[in-house]
């Protein structure tokens, strides 16, 4: 039986948010845009008055964070621990050094310009940027206080959308029959409009209008990370936004895109980025080690690799 889905789209977080909800409380569905707005205001580094920017300007002093910001930073640092720093929310200095100092929409508008004399960071500068980081952030859980060294700043671009999608799904109730897709980071909850799950096309990174496969998922997050969309020229070098903390610059991965299916959108979001940075061999091994996670990776020469259990999700 097909059940009519309430479908909504609205702009947020630099893209389009798509909500499909079946038999959900319409009032809750209508609150989803406000939830995204609250999260963006807390987490964005591209809004001068965001709570994150206030934290980053705290110059080493304890910062009283909202429960939302405190929780998402706690989650991000947890992932930095789990991935031994491959996922690192404190690479903001590197992102700015290679030119990702404004929203990608603004970067695209400036793409036609040359590098206007911006130089690549020296080795010493990179070492300085990396000398402190996620390991030096302190949490006071009782008082919701965060403290970090003055030269450490946080960027939540690697986790914010997935985290927000998970909270938005939760806001619709316990296991709602709904799907929320934040520009590619999505969670598909419940049994879908026809009762046989949600069908999710996986975009071909070389041909944005085509899919390489369709997934059939329920109660899973799906996210894709890659280098072909968010990239830009600075000087003679082309950079993208996925930073390899071992080299403090854009990852020289042999992959161009990684799609991860995982227990939550947050997991999928973080694992897709981490697997991309690690490359095909280590990235797939990483995914194999996470319960409930599978991946589809596309190499630079167009081969498609899958983790052991990914085929179970193919429609």
């Amino acid at each position, binding site marked *: 039986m097909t059940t009519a889905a309430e479908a909504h789209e609205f702009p947020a977080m630099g*893209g389009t948010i*798509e909500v*499909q909800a079946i038999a959900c409380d319409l009032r809750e569905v209508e609150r989803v845009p406000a939830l995204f707005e609250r999260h963006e205001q807390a987490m964005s580094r591209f809004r001068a008055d965001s709570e994150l920017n206030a934290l980053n300007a705290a110059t080493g002093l304890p910062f009283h964070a909202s429960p939302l910001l405190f929780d998402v930073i706690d989650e991000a640092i947890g992932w930095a621990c789990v991935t031994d720093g491959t996922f690192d929310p404190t690479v903001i200095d590197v992102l700015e050094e*290679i030119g990702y100092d404004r929203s990608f929409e603004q970067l695209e508008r400036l793409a036609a310009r040359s590098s206007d004399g911006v130089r690549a960071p020296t080795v010493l500068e990179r070492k300085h940027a990396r000398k402190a980081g996620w390991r030096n952030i302190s949490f006071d859980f009782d008082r919701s206080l965060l403290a970090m060294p003055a030269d450490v700043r946080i960027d939540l671009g690697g986790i914010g959308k997935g985290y927000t999608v998970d909270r938005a799904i939760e806001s619709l109730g316990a296991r709602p029959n709904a*799907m929320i897709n934040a*520009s*590619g980071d*999505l969670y598909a909850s419940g049994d*879908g*409009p026809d009762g046989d799950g*949600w*069908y*999710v096309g996986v*975009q071909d990174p*070389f*041909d*944005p209008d*085509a*899919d*390489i*496969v*369709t997934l059939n998922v329920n109660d899973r997050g*799906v*996210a*894709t990370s*890659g*280098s*072909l969309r968010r*990239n830009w020229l600075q000087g003679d070098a*082309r*950079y*993208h936004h996925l930073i390899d903390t071992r*080299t403090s610059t*854009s990852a*020289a*991965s*042999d*992959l*161009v*895109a990684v799609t991860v299916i995982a227990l939550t959108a947050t997991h999928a979001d973080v694992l897709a980025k981490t697997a991309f940075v*690690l*490359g*095909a*061999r*280590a990235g*797939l*091994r990483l995914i194999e080690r996470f319960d409930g996670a599978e991946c589809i990776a*596309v*190499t630079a*020469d*167009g*081969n*498609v*690799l*899958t*983790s*052991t259990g990914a*085929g179970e999700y*193919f*429609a």
Partner: protein
Amino acid sequence: MKFKKNLPAKIGALLASVAALLGIWTAVRQNPPATDATAAAVPAATASAAPGSSAAAPRRSATPLAAQPAAKRHTRTRVS
């Protein structure tokens, strides 16, 4: 004393153990065991590539998977 008599040998054994552990740790860090055939068949990442070199890889489409895209689709991922 017996302890002093065996001290050099004991220190030698201790150093050998530490060296062996360091060797194992290095090997595991650099070459973790394969967990499945798919991953083992994949070539290692190209460490010599320039920053973001994969960003401009010319290619018309990815190799199709055995499972073709289904006719039904509710949404799709986007590379971000």
